[in-house]
């Protein structure tokens, strides 16, 4: 039971990270591999806001979201926008976002140095609750709560607002969306901003959880995020949440029962198994091919 709580808490971070990934994919049909760099940036910016600027953490997290949003727009402008009309834009965007991600990590190194950065010791109250034999920390509850809240908010935004309707229209057909008067470029930028905001918050939550930020912290979660969106179904918001939980639980249970060195084999086994047996994922819809 203790493992389940730990799994859900780490899964909530994966879900939040994957949510951003899957949002850009579903609306714009692009895979943004700079997302992992935004995640790392979120962690460092959070530490700077709390550690150097002295802000309380509850004020820091929304600011990290905003900073992530700005980074998202920058990524869209320099990696995706210049090549969007090319026939191989899909592939080019992948490579261009790898490039921008590498540049962002380099800039983080310039600003924060290569060493591990940590939050000040009393950033977050160290409360623990015992429910039967299960121990839950306040931090775990906050991580799960923030993730759920942001997932719900995103779901509401996409399905219940005019902005969401415009995003879905762009997802369906950008050309037709432009014809009916939707500002496709604005929607594109907004989508990237939301996506990166979520990624940055995932980063700061993870940094709180393990109390450290590293330059290459995004590398591991990038692969996890891919696994999550495949398991949950590309483009599905509930799928990303559930996929995150499944991957988080699978990991924690593997560590407990098989051994920590096999953790990622199970994750990727899950990923490959789903892709081979049900490529659209648990919640995704299959796109028909056209003759």
């Amino acid at each position, binding site marked *: 039971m203790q493992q389940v709580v730990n799994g859900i808490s780490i899964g909530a971070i994966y879900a939040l990270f994957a949510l951003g990934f899957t949002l850009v*994919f579903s609306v714009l049909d692009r*895979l943004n591999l700079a997302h992992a760099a935004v995640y790392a940036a979120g962690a460092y910016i959070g530490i700077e806001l709390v550690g150097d600027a002295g802000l309380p953490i509850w004020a820091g997290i929304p600011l990290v979201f905003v900073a992530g949003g700005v980074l998202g727009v920058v990524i869209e402008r*320099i*990696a995706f926008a*210049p*090549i969007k009309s*090319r*026939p*191989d834009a*899909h*592939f*080019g965007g*992948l*490579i*261009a976002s*790898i*490039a*921008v*991600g*590498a*540049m962002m*990590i*380099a*800039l983080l*190194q*310039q600003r924060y140095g*290569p060493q591990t950065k940590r939050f000040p010791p009393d950033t977050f109250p160290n409360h623990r609750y015992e429910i039967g034999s299960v121990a839950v920390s306040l931090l775990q509850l906050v991580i799960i709560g923030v993730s759920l809240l942001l997932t719900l908010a995103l779901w509401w935004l996409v399905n219940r607002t005019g902005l969401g309707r415009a995003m879905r229209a762009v997802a369906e057909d950008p050309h037709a969306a432009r014809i009916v008067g939707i500002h496709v470029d604005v929607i594109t930028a907004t989508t990237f901003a939301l996506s990166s905001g979520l990624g940055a918050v995932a980063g700061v939550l993870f940094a709180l959880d393990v109390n450290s930020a590293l330059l290459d912290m995004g*590398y591991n979660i*990038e*692969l996890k995020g*891919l*696994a999550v969106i*495949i398991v949950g179904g*590309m483009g599905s918001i509930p799928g990303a949440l559930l996929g995150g939980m499944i991957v988080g639980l699978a990991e924690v249970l593997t560590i407990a029962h098989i051994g920590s*060195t*096999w953790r*990622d*084999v199970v994750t*990727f*086994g899950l*990923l*490959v198994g789903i*892709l*081979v047996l049900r*490529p659209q994922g648990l919640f995704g819809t299959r796109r028909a*091919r056209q*003759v």
Partner: protein
Amino acid sequence: MEETTFLLMAINGVLAYSFYAVLVAGQLSLAQIGCAAVAAFTAVRFTPDDPLLGFIPRLLVAIAIGMVVGAVVALLIGLPVMRLRGVFLAIATLGFAEMARITLNNMSWTGGALGTRVEKLVTLPIAVVVLALVAYWFARQRRSRLGRALDAIREDELAAQAMGIDVARYRLVSYVTAGAVAGLYGVMYAYFTRFIEPNNFNFPAAVDGLVKAVVGGSVVFVGPVLGAVFFELIPEAQRAIGLEAGWIRPFLAGALLLGVIVFLPGGFASLIPSRRMGRVRQPAAGPIPASPPSTLAAADPGPVDADGAPELLRLRGWSKDYGGVHAVRDVDLEIRAGEVLGLIGPNGAGKTTLVNMISGFVAPSSGTGSVLGVALGTRPRADRIARAGVGRTFQHSKLFSRLSALENVLVGAHRVSRPTFLRRLVWLPSADRDERDALGRAWAQLDRVGLGDRADVRASGLAYGDQRRLEIARALAGDPQLLILDEPAAGMNHVEAAAVGELITSLAADGVTILLIEHNVRLVLRTCTRIVVLNFGQVIAEGPPDEIASNDAVIEAYLGADTTTAPSA
């Protein structure tokens, strides 16, 4: 620069080629790094300590083991991911590669995370020779039948199938080639660095290889070498000008990568002027064979009707439902050799669905049938039907847009040409002859549709009418027995449409059987020997043109009530 720099260029160039091998076929696979890992550890483990049989050098033995293991691993990974495309393929293959790495990490025979010591056997001359051989392999692949088939799959898989290309098989060929080259890289790397651990073959390493192939250029064979050289030169250049702060190097590398992607879509290789095929007309080797090699078309022609003309196509009770929509209902149809059969009907009558079923792209919901001796079952194979001799064009042009007009038509000749790659590797003159035969065929068809003077233009750069005619030329290059034209005159003005009509008439005179779907009724009435009218998925009339033109049901359903004006859609 030190020798190590050049060695790294050569070895990383080999890795970049393993990505090039799949990228030319449009397959974004990242499995190669996993193949390299398994190959490297297996080769190091099983290569004997002394020369094999006393004279075969150990490195050669290791390379042989590595390439075989790499190819086998690639095949095993390739089979289950056959259904996947694009990003999904990339993620699945990455998942396999990561699983391979972590499994190796957990094995005792690899030394796990502690790694394995390896003797240094790779020297600069060896590395350069190996890279040159790999580059040679891909240089010879490029203008072979195999190379063209891979180009076609990269540009448009469905159109490639319509040319008779077995897409699954060729995709596997590209995976296995990539796996073998990756295995070669793994072995070279191991016997160069003296020490390997599974983490040498992780995700960033895969991205490195991919980036080098893309930056160098993934369509021209020298690309991977350029990419590898470029990325080894960056640190050298920074050292030379004294920019060595820790963050500057990765920042500049990223910025340069971004610059290449944004400003040089084809990578560095696009800076090298290359001859696009079709600029120079080469003399044909000899007279172009008028008909396809008969072994290919030896399919059972089917029952012979009263007039003595064999039936090429026979459908009985064909239906296709999409959800609750009956796109095609209970259609019986046959086409006899030598006919020009027109298929007309209002929009949504089910014409294109019927054609897609005949050419194997869509499975019927019910019904039996066969075309040129191939049964049209519930799991049709478009490439098999194309190889039996069915050529087709598409309602919306499906050209290989980045290939020249001539290259498009050359792909069309896939069915009637022989594989040339292996013979090209050893410069057999017969391969050259076959290639010139195929070229002659392609030129002849281009001339036939009047595109002889635009042979070197990219398909995407042709005018709309020219694109439609290029599709016809491409289908003709396969010497089809049955040619299906799906609205060849759509969107054309009446002069162009008349030219298409003349082309169809001349093809019929040459004995090609034609199934013509067209909205331009005037064109159909003039060119066809028999017409079938479809409405709401059902055949409502059938007969010679003059009968159809005066058939009341047809007039009501399609031509409208006013019969005094001949409609032209």
